[in-house]
């Protein structure tokens, strides 16, 4: 197989600056890159869609942002139905003529990456800036990745074997693997969006001081993990699935919580 195009988004360094979203609009609104794609409408489309989740409760929270664009899947219903083409380099492009008028296409993507353009009566989506990649001129790579100030969004043009190695080494994942579509967009630190944490603090009852160095153990749902509290007395068990967990620390009764989402259980006072 020839070199393939991939995007990798690292949630740890994404802070919702929207440069990717702005760059996408800058490139596609008011510019006609047919046959790749017609101009994007000025408002409404989100070819790069920034999803946000706030985990926990104030003041122990964090926020995860996930950039969701067309995942350029190896298995794509649009391609199977003849409305789109998957190029040799892995980029999926809508065939605007064939797709014209077929609103049912909007439901073909489980990631919801397709938008309807009323003016051309056809669907549109991320092209991975194939017109720029093909032209071989600046900025050489998709505009979203080029404009990312923290390099949270990176573009790769490599052999699948090399990509598999990066996936392995950096612990990359696909979003919604259960869709089984083999996306060409991977995520790092995906748990910041998809998993849960249990957090809290240990406080010494007598001195009312944060208890640094306390050993806190979380058990449940097949997890058994021990953490040492920091100088704020805090612990944070992350990457948890919903379920029932018990938190144990010397000098206090065990605390058992059932979580559906991330939870700040507050302070545990110890003798």
């Amino acid at each position, binding site marked *: 197989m020839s070199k393939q195009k991939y995007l990798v988004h690292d949630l740890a360094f994404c802070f919702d600056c929207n440069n990717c979203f*702005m760059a996408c609009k*800058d490139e596609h609104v008011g510019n006609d890159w047919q046959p790749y794609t017609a101009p994007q409408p000025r408002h409404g489309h989100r070819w790069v869609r920034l999803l946000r989740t706030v985990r926990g409760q104030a003041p122990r929270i964090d926020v995860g942002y996930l950039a969701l664009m067309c995942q350029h899947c190896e298995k794509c219903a649009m391609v199977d139905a003849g409305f789109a083409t998957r190029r040799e380099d892995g980029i999926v492009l809508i065939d605007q003529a064939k797709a014209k008028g077929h609103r049912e296409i909007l439901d073909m993507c489980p990631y919801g990456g397709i938008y309807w353009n009323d003016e051309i009566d056809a669907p549109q989506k991320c092209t991975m800036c194939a017109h720029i990649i093909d032209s071989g001129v600046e900025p050489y790579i998709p505009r979203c990745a080029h404009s990312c100030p923290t390099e949270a969004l990176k573009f790769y043009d490599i052999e699948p074997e090399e990509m598999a190695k990066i996936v392995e080494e950096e612990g990359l994942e696909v979003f919604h693997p259960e869709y089984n579509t083999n996306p060409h967009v991977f995520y790092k630190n995906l748990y910041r969006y998809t998993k849960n944490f249990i957090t809290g603090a240990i*406080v010494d009852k007598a001195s009312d001081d944060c208890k640094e160095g306390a050993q806190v153990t979380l058990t449940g749902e097949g997890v058994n993990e021990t953490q040492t509290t920091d100088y704020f007395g805090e612990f944070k068990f992350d990457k948890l699935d919903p379920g029932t967990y018990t938190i144990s620390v010397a000098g206090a009764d065990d605390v058992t919580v059932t979580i559906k989402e991330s939870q700040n259980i507050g302070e545990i006072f110890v003798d």
Partner: protein
Amino acid sequence: MKGEIRLTNSSTGGPVFVYVKDGKIVRLTPMDLDETDPEGWTIEAHGRTFTPPRKTTIQMYTAGQKSMVYSDRRLLYPMKRVDFDPNGERNIQNRGISGYERISWEEAADIIVSEVNRIKREVGPGGILSTPSSHHLWGNVGYRHSTYFRFMNLMGFTYADHNPDSWEGWHWGAMHMWGFSWRLGNPEQYNLLEDCLQNSELIVFWSSDPEVNNGIYGGFESHIRRRWMDELGIKMVFIDPFYNHSANMWGMKWLSPKVGTDHAISFAIAYTWLTEGTYDKEYVADHAYGFEEWAEYVLGNGEDGIPKTCEWAEAESGVPACEIRALAREWAKRKTQLAAGGLGGWGGACRATHGIEWTRGMIALATMQGLGKPGSNMYSTTQGVPTDHNFFFPGYADGGISGDCSNSAAGFKFAWRMFDGKTTFPAPVKMNWEAGQHIPRLKIPECLMNGKFEWYGKGFCGATIEAQMHPYQYPAPGYGSIKMYWKYGGPHIGTMTATNRYAKMYHSETLEFVLSQSIWNEGEVMFADVIIPACTNYERWDISEFGNCSGYIPDNFAQTNFRVISFQQKCIEPLGESKSDYDIYAYLSKKFGIYDIFTEGKDEMAWIEQYYNATDCPTLMSFEDFCKKGYLVVPYNPEGVPKTAFRWFAENRVRDTPDWGPAPNQTVGLKGLQTTTGKIEFISTSLSRFEAQGFVDEYRPAMHKYVPAWESWHAEVAKKYPLGMLSPHPRFSFHTMGDAKDSFMLDIKDHRVLVDGWYYWIIRMNTVDAEARGIKDGDLVRAYNDRGSVILCAQVGERVQPGTVHSYESCAEYAPLGKPGHSADRGGCVNILTPDRYMSKYACGMAPNSAQIEVEKWDGGIYEIY
């Protein structure tokens, strides 16, 4: 791409390549450096070598700027209000209501010149008021300090002085503790990146979100530095009522005080250090003045008798005592940088009703831990890179083609390099100086509606510590009253305080003529009698440096990883009949009879060449080559790397940093700080003298004390309006730049929300407060107090604590539902709700960042109040 050409330009959010085809902008991208550009600097720390990536970064308002150039809100032609007749009925009562008709430039110019000349003959040039927005579009020749002042100084006018709206507490408070008047009270930041990487173990970010408010104009250049700090194991703690974006990326801990109570925490930290003996006693003995008496006050032996314990601070701020104590102990143990604000100074807390004491509290803590010793400093991580500081290229605040030494920093160096006094001359100031007529921007409505006003300090009071104590009055003695307002841009309703005032004032009968010179139809432009269209920086020629404004932020090119000087190319012709400011003034100056003096026979390009040759640029590249390449990168020069900030002070040496002050006459033998004692003054000598002269100010005592914020949960008004509103500088737009105007930014989900065809501004509130009011995420709500009502979209969640709400200032859109100035606004100008009271009796700054409000579900009403 075929047929495209790549040009260069620059912006408030970083330098850009602009791709143009057939006279139209195709795209704007960040600049990547190429192989002909010089190598970057390096820093060695802990066995590693750090060097910046070979690229520049841009902010999102720059990334989306094409949509602001091509916007249906652009003003493309001169216009006149349909029922305004300068020779007959002016219909002042219909300003903001009656609509416009297109007129020619000739007709517009005739009205303007005839009105200006009439008023000058009636009452003198003092009768003409003008002021521009804080932030012009980028470019040192076209900037307001340059072209605008050159023209206005020659025409004559009363200036509305800008208040130091990002400094406030530092300007009115910190300056009395340690001087730095030339920085309006902010600290120097020289070479602190190296100090931090090599020596520090902890950074406390206090009212500081450097991933978002990257200092100013510096793109996202500083992100990489915090990544290095994180990799070296430097821990980062954040104190902010809002869970900010840097806290999310780096914070091991978020402490969230109630709005207006940060200084309770700083006092409790000091209390902990005093009682546990964990502060630098030797340093304090040598470098602080009034410390012992202050320490007694902190311990509860002062007049209020209250020990400032962590438990006391918990009651004030809502932050658990044990967490304050834990932070205090760790801070005392570790080499710590205090990032108070996002620039090295600044921070939303300085723009609040406790801003004066918060800034003094920050300095107190840094002093107690040996400010200036290795690893222990005040550093916001946004400046302090080791670029060449010897290479001279001015910022926009250095005056450009005006040479105005009173209203810009031209007199520091640049005017003497720019004007030879034989063939080319500055535009001298004869009106807008200390003894001329000028009014405070925050009180334009009072001056216009009441006809008189008294205040202290002229604008940015940077000359001396005492300058801010000087009394002024409007009208200035012997000067005429204002009859005309020549407004540049339209943001005040979204940027000043209690801003229904700014809408109401336009119906003042004494205001005979209102002219608006603006790029977009936004904000208060709708109140003008005549509108003239300016163009963007992509439609004119200019020159500038990335992140360098200079003036009251000396050497702030040290925000950027590479010093990039841009030739700002005219990428497209001005849209419609819009013109560059220079061309507008050149055109008008012909009719005013001052064309030759204003232009000296030069066009913009000729001024740019003169400007270029007045800098150090010709030592690197000829002007022709610069124009051809489009930019210039200043090479790394080890000899140009400055010494470390405050190290000279810690070591009792003569200052060896390139800072602009203190002036020799404000020191003894060039040693010490600018204060009378040369030390950090816990009891301010300047304020003590002012008090002794009878100017006693309960909200700004000579000693740094815990003065409860006058608009916060403590205040009587909180019984009626229980929610404390934080209203910081905006996250996505640069003040009003980028907001509204049908720009791409409307689609940013955390900026505005589309509901029933209208893009609403956002207010963030805690789940508990929302539930108590029956408000759900995405609901339209009315935020209100006695000052007015604003319709917003609620974002319900956990990023603020119960009792705190958060909505950015600087909305560009003013959209009153009923009579302007008297009804609810759905544009999103939350500044309508903020207090117009000065910070204190003699500290004439704004305190918008701690307003008390109530929020309810909006019932669709227009909420008119009179």
